């Protein structure tokens, strides 16, 4: 029994570390997609956030500053995506593809330029990482230690998800952003500024994706490496689709996918199930979900369609 409880503690711990990056990015994706702008550049925005977070924390020694700057770096690419998609009406999938070239390219470029041609940034001290809660309160390795003594941000992101859900359904801004994603023409006639709403949402999506990326380098990995994000941005997009474009639904999906990542981390070297097969789960269940949701028109109606003011 005690072994079982201990294993459960380890699993929850692994989940609490694997879920936040997905959840931050997924919440970002919710903003963008619900306002009618497809953002597959989430992956790239996470990568630049991961890099910026690690580097800023390395130079300032402060994990929180790094975390926030990681978000800002993501937001910069959010601005680029917004200019291309909202102002210039570019194909949103193509613009996102461009971001996925630009942002990771820039991250590794800057890393090499700063750290003597090395594509990895120097490892961070524990002090420069994000802080853990209840340090030294519980016995190391105990159930409560595993469940409670982890990064405070890992708990905050769930609060944030519920907060975003509140913004979506209970505030004027949330109502507007959902309306803009369904029927921009109607919004314009009601005096809602479609461009401004979409700009805010796309920039927010970059900011949140950047935070997600920064969590990876400031909590899990402790340094930037080019392969630090691989696919997490796309898992976040999958989670949003699986969660029916709803913040709380996405949170549940992220927990499920975070659970998969947690299991993978726990199994580690043991060859019970191939970690590669576990890695497929998020994508396979999302395909299944897409097949089953059909006809329910869960995708925001104006998603992917550039909006141009009629003259």
């Amino acid at each position, binding site marked *: 029994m005690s072994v079982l409880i201990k294993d459960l503690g380890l699993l929850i711990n692994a989940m609490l570390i694997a879920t936040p990056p997905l959840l931050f990015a997924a919440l970002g994706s919710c903003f963008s997609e619900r306002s009618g702008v497809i953002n597959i550049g989430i992956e790239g925005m996470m990568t630049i956030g991961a890099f910026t977070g690690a580097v800023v924390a390395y130079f300032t020694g402060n994990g929180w500053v790094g975390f926030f700057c990681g978000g800002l770096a993501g937001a910069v690419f959010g601005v680029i995506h917004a200019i291309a998609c909202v102002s210039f009406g570019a194909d949103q999938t193509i613009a996102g*593809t461009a*971001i996925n070239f*630009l942002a*990771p390219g820039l991250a590794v470029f800057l890393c090499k330029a700063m750290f003597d041609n090395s594509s990895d940034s120097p490892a961070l001290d524990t002090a420069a990482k994000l802080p853990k809660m209840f340090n030294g309160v519980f016995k190391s390795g105990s159930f409560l230690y595993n469940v409670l003594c982890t990064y405070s941000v890992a708990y905050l992101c769930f609060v944030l998800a519920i907060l975003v859900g509140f913004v979506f359904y209970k505030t004027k801004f949330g109502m507007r952003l959902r309306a803009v994603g369904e029927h921009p023409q109607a919004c314009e006639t009601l005096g809602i500024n479609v461009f401004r709403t979409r700009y805010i949402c796309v920039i927010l999506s970059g900011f949140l994706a950047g935070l997600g990326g920064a969590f990876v380098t400031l909590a899990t990995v402790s340094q930037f490496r080019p392969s630090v994000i691989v696919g997490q941005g796309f898992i976040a997009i999958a989670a949003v689709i699986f969660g029916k474009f709803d913040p709380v639904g996405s949170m549940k999906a992220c927990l499920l996918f975070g659970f998969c990542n947690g299991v993978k981390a726990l199994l580690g070297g043991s060859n019970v199930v191939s970690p590669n097969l576990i890695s497929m789960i998020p994508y*396979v269940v999302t*395909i299944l979900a897409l097949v089953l949701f059909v006809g329910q028109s869960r995708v925001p109606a104006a998603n992917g369609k550039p909006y141009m003011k009629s003259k």
Partner: protein
Amino acid sequence: MSKKNSILKGNAVYVFLSIMIGFIVGAVLLLAAGISPGEAYGKLADGVFGQTKYIVWSIVYASPLIFTGLSVAFSFKTGVFNIGAEGQFVVGSLAACAVGILVKAPGPIHVLLCILAAMIAGGLWGAVVGILKVKRGVHEVLSYIMFNWIAFYLSNYVVNLKAIHRTGGGEATKDIADTARMKMPDGIVAATRCSAANWGIFLAVGAAILIWFIMNKTTLGYQLRAVGFSKSAAEYGGINTSRNFLTAMSISGALAGLGGAVQVLGMSGRISQFASQEQFGFQGITVALIASSNPIGCIFAGLFYGAMKYGGTKLSLVNAPSEVVDIIMGTIILFIAISHIFKMIVAKRLHKKEGGK
């Protein structure tokens, strides 16, 4: 219409400007990092054109990209956005590699078998997404993205299977049999001094011409383009749009899969475990955009990208990060993506000038 106006209405001028802007952005970044852009771009050019060997290497790098470019260009013409070329390329290379290792056959037949396996694998990978689209109404961009990652992990899974994994060190498959390689004869390899010189480029050019022919000279091509141009109009004209989407997505997938075969049979000879996506499919999107979805244009756009990729590997010699190539290419895509609005403005202006005819 004057010649000047017809140029402004075409794509070429915007693509050219986008490429210029790409290089300028790259230069600004290099400057910011304290690297002379002249030196870096000089090295890039020298790394591509400096020796015969370099030119051949650039072509070797270009061959798979011409295929993924063709795959995406073909999909654009048929009204689908094949962002899944990445995954189709991966399953194609996987199938070619598996047949190359596990099957025994004499020379040319073995190569053909590998190519066939890759085309079928890539084609099926695309067709499944097509079926989801026409039968269940699932948006293809979403399912393509999911299938890219399923292919990614499938490949890593297969690479680690005992029957295929190499013995001794290295996270990769065994080398494929010599009979499955499509290398140039020894004499040519010796003359070009490029150990990876292979027939891939001829296949790529052949495929481009074939696709151009199908699109422009056959009934099938006419129907596919009609569906791509306007689905409802094509339906009204009695064209079975569902079947056309399926055909288009399968052919597009087969082309990307073929690219995977060319990479394995021609160049790498094996598949390594992926740490991150190899991006052949996404680079194909760039190739298709630079080529304005013209199959013949894909040959030249693919050569351009291949040269940039190969030349980029030389940049570390002048201490410039090779990632500047990604940044240049990303900028090019971004500007091509936003150029259509300028094209619209110019078209409107010209229309007015010509008296609103």
